[in-house]
């Protein structure tokens, strides 16, 4: 992985009239990494991405890509960037082939062999008018146009929404190929599992501010689980209090509610010494992770 910064945000701030969309983002994305930008809807992910493409102008601070200012030198930036917007809108009257032809005429370096390869891999229909295609099929055309010029940086806003699971897997392989070339990817997502699966590093944004930037494996170690266990008889809080990683334990007669940080191994082994009637485990929501680790900050 290179150390050169591909994306560099400095105190990046955007207000829409008086509403603060993002506030003082500082972030560096390195060459060759796949970076996940994770946050709930409305956190400021799309605003950040629109600033990166030069669609909107920062209120304060700056954003640069390969040392070009994203608003002032937008054309230079966009020569090097492939982009997939959230909920992509395409020219409905065109077929996929016509659209890709048009977009390739607006920039240099379309690799038509790659287009053909991606069309097959994503099982994309490029011959029908786009307006007659389903959302997932439009999304595939959006993916092809983002990849087809082999850009140095690919920016994608919620890339897998609308794709069925098999195509999602194919998309992950496409990302592996890009990574193997040493190119850089910036993905926004609200899906933690997806980010864990594909990204090297993740930044978490909440209410317009970056609350954490971490390597993925660090984040995994910090994963949390919520358990609700119904035992056949009453258990005492003391039994679990000393177990590794236990947080917020509540015991009501024979029911234990708790949050476990990191691996749940020790907790499960302790619990298994009693007769368990029912075990409910909740995958943590993003909000839970935030509250658990960053809520205090």
């Amino acid at each position, binding site marked *: 992985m290179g150390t050169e910064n591909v994306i560099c945000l400095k105190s990046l701030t955007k207000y829409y009239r008086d509403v603060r969309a993002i506030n003082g983002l500082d972030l560096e994305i390195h060459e060759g990494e796949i970076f996940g930008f994770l946050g709930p809807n409305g956190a400021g992910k799309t605003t950040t991405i629109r600033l990166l493409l030069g669609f909107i102008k920062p209120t304060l601070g700056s954003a640069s890509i390969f040392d070009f200012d994203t608003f002032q030198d937008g054309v230079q930036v966009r020569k090097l960037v492939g982009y997939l917007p959230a909920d992509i809108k395409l020219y409905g009257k065109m077929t996929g082939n016509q659209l890709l032809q048009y977009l390739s005429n*607006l*920039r240099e370096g379309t690799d038509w062999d790659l287009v053909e390869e991606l069309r097959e891999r994503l099982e994309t229909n490029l011959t029908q008018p786009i307006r007659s295609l389903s959302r997932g099929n439009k999304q595939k055309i959006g993916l092809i146009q983002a990849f087809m010029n082999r850009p140095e940086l690919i920016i994608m806003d919620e890339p897998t929404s609308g794709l069925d699971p098999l195509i999602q897997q194919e998309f992950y392989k496409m990302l592996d190929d890009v990574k193997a070339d040493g190119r850089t990817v910036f993905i926004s997502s609200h899906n933690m599992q997806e980010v864990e699966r594909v990204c090297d590093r993740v930044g978490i944004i909440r209410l317009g501010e970056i609350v954490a930037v971490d390597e993925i494996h660090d984040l995994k170690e910090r994963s949390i689980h919520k358990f609700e266990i119904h035992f056949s008889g009453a258990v005492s809080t003391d039994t679990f209090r000393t177990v590794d990683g236990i947080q917020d334990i509540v015991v009501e007669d024979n029911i234990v509610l708790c949050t476990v940080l990191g691996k749940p191994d020790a907790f499960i082994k302790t619990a298994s010494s009693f007769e368990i009637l029912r075990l409910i485990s909740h995958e943590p929501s993003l909000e839970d992770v935030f509250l658990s680790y960053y809520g205090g900050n």
Partner: protein
Amino acid sequence: MLRNMLLKELWDQRKPFLWWCLGFLVLIPVIISMYPSVRDMTEINIMMDNDLIRAFSGGVTDITSPVGYLNSQLYFLMVPLLFLIFGITQGSGAIAGEEESGTLDLLLSNPVSRSRVVLQKFSAIIVNMLVFACIVWLISITSVIAINMEISLIRIGEITFSVALLGILFASLAFLVGCVIGKRGMSVGITSAIGVLTYILYSLGPIVDRLEPLEVLSPFYYYFEADPLTNGLYLPHVLVLIIVILVLVVIAYAMFKHRDLGV
């Protein structure tokens, strides 16, 4: 046809364009073919001898003459009105239409500058309007020849060019409003309102004393006042129209260049 944004615009417009041509292919021959019956009705001029009627028929005094007939029946209201609608539709669709439908993001995610987008999209409007004007001219002269109307075919070309400039002017205004606020409906509404007001201003000018000095503010004045069908194009008025168009487009570009795009 998809080599650049200009050609893509023309490609997008091909079907509506064809419908517009078909509309004129019906309208103009029908109106011109009725001329022989009007020519013989000299008493109609007595009916027309009324300020208000004259205000809305281009100040024509002899409707039975070829020039009077064409000016009052086609070039004072019908043709400019349709060119306005044609122009406003295109001007508002170019930027605001694409912004509202969400495809402007896709377009501008490519290495194209906003100035190139403005320039090519506006060029497409001009090309569309001029080609359309040529077709309208061809339809008009064919109809005129068919009934042996005694009128200069060149002069018909000149007034058609004048009305095309008027159409482009209102297209630029719609384009400008679209570039500033990014809403197609607003662009159509505001520009149409300005179109109607300036039309009324120009047509009522001769009979309402207070309005007369304001006539020069109406684009219709520069389109029609010099009577291009009789006298040919009047260069100062043509220049005013062209300069206003250029100013509107330059402002449109300046506003669009630094604006946040809508989602």
